[in-house]
């Protein structure tokens, strides 16, 4: 994000600067959200794999990792726990996606404002 060459000087006001700052922040948050969403999705996939494995297994007691140790936990309790964890992660994932949508919308608005003022002497696109 920088204003490239061109000798023509467009006045930059404090308001513009604040808009640019805001855009920078949003862009940062956008990348954070993408990471978080990816992690949440992976977690959910893992839960799904685990519960599929549980269906296949004959063992009544399985080793369930709590913290650093593997506890011997009855199969149905593990199923319950996984279900609960999936639910929590899914809710979290929804929240993240909503926030991402909001961020994208705000960025689009700011882009309009900033491009309208600075034309091609500002670059708000990712490399």
């Amino acid at each position, binding site marked *: *994000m920088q204003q490239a060459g061109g000798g023509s000087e467009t006045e930059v006001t*404090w308001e513009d600067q604040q808009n640019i700052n805001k855009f920078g922040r949003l862009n940062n948050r956008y990348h954070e959200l993408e990471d978080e969403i990816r992690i949440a999705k992976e977690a959910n996939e893992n839960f799904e794999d685990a519960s599929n494995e549980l269906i296949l297994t004959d063992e009544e007691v399985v080793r369930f990792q709590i913290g650093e140790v593997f506890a011997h936990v009855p199969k149905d309790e593990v199923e319950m726990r996984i279900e609960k964890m999936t639910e929590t992660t899914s809710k979290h994932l929804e929240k993240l996606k909503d926030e991402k949508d909001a961020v994208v919308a705000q960025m689009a608005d700011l882009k309009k404002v900033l491009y309208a003022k600075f034309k091609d002497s500002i670059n708000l696109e990712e490399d």
Partner: protein
Amino acid sequence: MRGGAAVLPASSSDRWAVAMAMRLERHDCSLGSHSKQMRYSTTPQPLRHQGSRKIMATSSSSPPQPGGAVVAERRGIPAASFVEDVQTYLNQLGLDVNSTLAFLQERLQQYKVVEMKLLAQQRDLQAKIPDIEKCLDVVATLQAKKGTGEALLTDFEVSEGIYSRARIEDTDSVCLWLGANVMLEYSCEEATSLLQKNLENAKASLEVLVADLQFLRDQVTITQVTIARVYNWDVHQRRVRQASASQDS
């Protein structure tokens, strides 16, 4: 380990305090001959940068800031002042374009150094929060087993890749690793509340840290924009001069 207590790292709250004391170090940075030295310090203090104070003063006389005062610094990170007009800014600094650009670049580097430190702290905290959550999970499991009469069977890692089996009978207590080679035995209730407190502290610290980072990034953006503007202004001046020179001849 029979009837004994499980060992969990508690990540004591003082450790957060130490980590969060924002050791930005004495980052003495010379700002050129026009101003005194400025440094990032652990305690908030007014900016020792006369140049920027002057700029702040003038920029507040023209009313560019909606919502009142501009923050001069945040936890030792000096604010970048917004430049209203490049010509006035250069006059105030008493520097030519090249030294001004060098000064701004230097400032940018300093911001980057601080950003690296803050990011490292952020990664630390982000790793610690799930750790504490795991510990809470274990204590909750122990508590849930208590009173059911059956022992909790676990496989735990003795050494890399080697597991042994532990049978934890009814237990009322766990030992929390407080750091600095200290381990303390707590009742499950106390352990939960301590861990909970640590979790809250960690989350609060993270929140502050994120705000610090945002502030810092704003300053970086302002400085980058200022650099671009000073540069563009210079190019513009040269063109004007060239144009008038060719007209004269």
